[in-house]
């Protein structure tokens, strides 16, 4: 099995007096097609992990291979390109642009890609079909329910066919029912071969993953037996 993500002794220290070691040296591998949950309370280093995995931040020490590429050697522009092409982000707060239609929001994901100026709308529509929103293509996000908005966000993450879908508290702003629907969607996508990493504080959410790791005080431990 090829590894999509491979962290080798990755740590992140924030400068200050004293310096804060938000993530202690960590080894973590996410294989292709895997569904991993990273669970931990707030302040545990979850966010740091998210930003490192999402190439929004660089490790202080250690090496992070994404799709076999050493991300430490990349320029900002190349890391931005990797974010665009290899990683799909789903956020707790959805982050949809309220003045654009559903399909325009999904199309936004390809703006920063080098090779995507034709068929952008068609790909966006196809992605929305995958999350079951083909009937709301031209709706404004303000008229959508929370669950629908998060599904638009998932479609936006999927449109670039990422190697890794990175979800940050994807159900945090949703009620239990719609949260379950999103989790069901994730399972469906996982079943189709997508590699997922869900970062959450919610054990119930993490328990639905194929594999869990728990992060606490910057230390990542595998969870052997889910409850």
């Amino acid at each position: 099995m090829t590894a999509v993500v491979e962290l080798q002794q990755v740590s992140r220290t924030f400068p200050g007096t004293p310096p804060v070691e938000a993530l202690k040296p960590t080894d973590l591998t996410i294989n292709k097609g895997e569904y991993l949950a990273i669970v931990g309370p707030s302040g545990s280093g979850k966010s740091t992990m998210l930003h490192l995995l999402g190439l929004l931040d660089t490790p202080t020490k250690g090496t992070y291979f994404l799709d076999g590429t050493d991300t430490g050697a990349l320029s900002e522009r190349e890391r931005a390109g990797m974010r665009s092409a290899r990683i799909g982000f789903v956020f707790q707060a959805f982050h949809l642009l309220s003045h654009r239609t559903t399909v325009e929001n999904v199309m936004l994901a390809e703006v920063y890609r080098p090779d995507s100026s034709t068929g952008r709308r068609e790909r966006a529509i196809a992605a929305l079909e995958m999350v079951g929103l083909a009937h709301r293509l031209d709706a404004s996000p303000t008229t959508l329910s929370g669950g629908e908005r998060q599904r638009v966000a998932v479609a936006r993450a999927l449109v670039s066919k990422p190697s890794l879908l990175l979800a940050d508290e994807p159900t945090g702003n949703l009620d239990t029912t719609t949260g379950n629907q999103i989790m069901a969607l994730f399972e469906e996508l996982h079943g189709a071969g997508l590699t997922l990493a869900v970062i959450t504080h919610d054990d119930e959410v993490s328990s639905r993953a194929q594999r869990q790791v728990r992060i606490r005080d910057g230390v990542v431990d595998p969870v052997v037996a889910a409850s």
Partner: protein
Amino acid sequence: MTLLPGGVDPEDFESLGQPQAPNQDPTPAPTEPIPQQKTASANPGLDTPPPTDEEQVPQSRFAWRDLLGEMLLALTARPARTLLTALGTILGVAALVATLGLAKTAGNQIVSRFDELEATQVSVEPQQGAFESNRQTSAIPWDAEDRLTRLNGVTAAGTITPVETNNQLTRSVPVNDPLGQTEFQIPVVATSPGLFQAARAQLFTGRFFDEGHNERGDQVAVLGPGAARRLNISRVDNSPAIFIGDESFAVVGIIADTARKPELLNAIIVPDGLAKDRFQLEAVSEVLIDVEVGAAELIGIQAPVALAPNSPEELRAAIPPSPTRVRSDVQSDVNALFLILGGVSLLVGAIGIANVTLVSVLERTGEIGLRRAMGATRRHVAVQFLGESVALGGLAGLLGTSLGILTVVVVSATREWSPILDSWLPFAAPAVGAATGLLAGTYPAWKAASTEPIAALRGSA
């Protein structure tokens, strides 16, 4: 670097020469310089994930077309707000355009109202100091008229010299009225024949003397209306004669009026060919030249040279104030105040744009974080925000220019002026607006670029 299908060079805002990963990257990953082949299929199915290695690292790009699209969407998302933001700049540009246009228009009105008679008149006199004791020596030759009419732009020229008659009285012959006064002190002026045309004299009756009279030294005179009335002469068909001292002169014509040289109206005008002999006239004191419109300045330079090639500096040409000088004087007066006003409105407009753009950066932190996550570099974010404020400024410049031109037209219409605008103005003014936007957007764009995506994404949308 490949061109996007849209023909837009994707090598856009990033610095040049990013090293290509396959050749120089020290990663252990086995990479080869095979261009990444993404399928353009409409189906983002998950069954064909991209190959994980043997690929070069993709670089983030922000094509011009996408940038323009994003800018357009940002400006049209809230039209009312966009318009209000741009209001200061709109008014500033409008004030500038209206000021420049109205100054130009008004300046031209003043010029066109300018006295045509004065604008076509040039006179040449000897410089002060060219007189030696009582004897007047002048650099103006007797054939001044011939020399000057050869110049292009001169329509007529004539010499004019007051004649010293040693207080000789003038009388006319036929009437012998013991009660009335019959002898008068009337000024005598010697001129060349062309003077009548140069002074735009109109005949009341008879004729002007001509070149023939002048050359032969005929004893002829033309009377100004005042002089004719005093001498009691009202017709010339009976060949009246007048006596200046003991010299007799045949009156050949009476002037009705002159446009220039009003002193002719009360004078007896004799040919200077005659005056040279009879009155010992030694030098011409002035040359009056009638020129075509616009030629005054040129003739003012040429006439002294034509008259006195050896010593043109001894002659002084009096020319009317040139139209261009009049215009620029008027303009500079009108402009100064309003240009300051326009500049202040522009400054206020720039502050307005900067303020709203800054607020919008704070409002859109979520969007900024999202864009960063989706592959935008800091520079892409900066360029987008800068582009939005430049577009806003440019839009404001366009609206302001239209408003300013409209103002010029309306004001001109009410004053019955012909509106005049420098042709560069409608092009430069929107650029001023865009420059305002650029200036105003710099700080907000920098602020947007330095937004941490980490913080931005955790904030609520």
